[in-house]
């Protein structure tokens, strides 16, 4: 049996108005940016 992945179903859930998915990269600056 083939089942859809849960993540695919989550993608179909509409985001609230104004919601912006956090970018995966780049990550946070720990000290300071040169």
């Amino acid at each position: 049996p083939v089942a859809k992945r849960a993540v695919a179903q989550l993608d179909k859930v509409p985001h609230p108005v104004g919601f912006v998915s956090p970018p995966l990269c780049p990550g946070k600056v720990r000290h300071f940016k040169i």
Partner: protein
Amino acid sequence: VPAAPVAPLGCDDPESEAAAQAAVNYINGHSHHGYKFTLNRIKNIRVIPQGPNSYIIFLEVDLLETTCHVLSPTPLENCTVRSFTEHAVEGDCDIKLQKLDGKLTVIATKCHSHADSSEDVAQLCPDCPLLASLNNTEVTTAVTAALSAHNSKTADAYLQLLEIGRAKIQYGPAHIVYVEFAVAATNCSAEAAKDNVEACQLLPDDQSNFGFCTATMVIRPKEDLKVDCQLYGHQVPTPDTPFLSRVFQPTT
């Protein structure tokens, strides 16, 4: 059997951070010059499936220079990051790792380092000294004078220069040269070296025989020289000895 797809990793995911820390430890452990670097930012991460329980990780990271020389036994987490006004140095690294059955192995690293622009530092701190070339005449003169001054005063081992790590020059209002350099102890006492310095040999490679010096040479308005050298030394932790004094054993 094609490798199973791997979920994309975010740059701040714990697994990404673990990979970056493994990479930073590898880079510092394999570096024989300059200072230890610490992670500042994971710029990008890509995961390529390889087989069951195995995948390749490509990392791009920004690192920042710390005040700990690579020969220092101080753990990286206790090393201070060079501040922006100290004329910070950044490292850009591309790293390839393999994760096999949950175990990370660094396969390859490629790093470049560069100092922040002098203009940026001067804009924020007009009177701050700026990084100078390590073969600048004023720098080499300051290092030679500082090491001679140390060796002429100490009753301990005669120290030889290993490398100049960093140098800054301030031209105004006073003309000052700041230098940092790594040293190694020889088999001669400083007193014995006065008679025959050529006979002095470096002791066998051992962390306890390495040390680090900082010196300040004022050229104007009034000539002055201050030097401070510390050998790293073997340290046995005891409950009544503060951590920092265990890490560095002062010789002056």
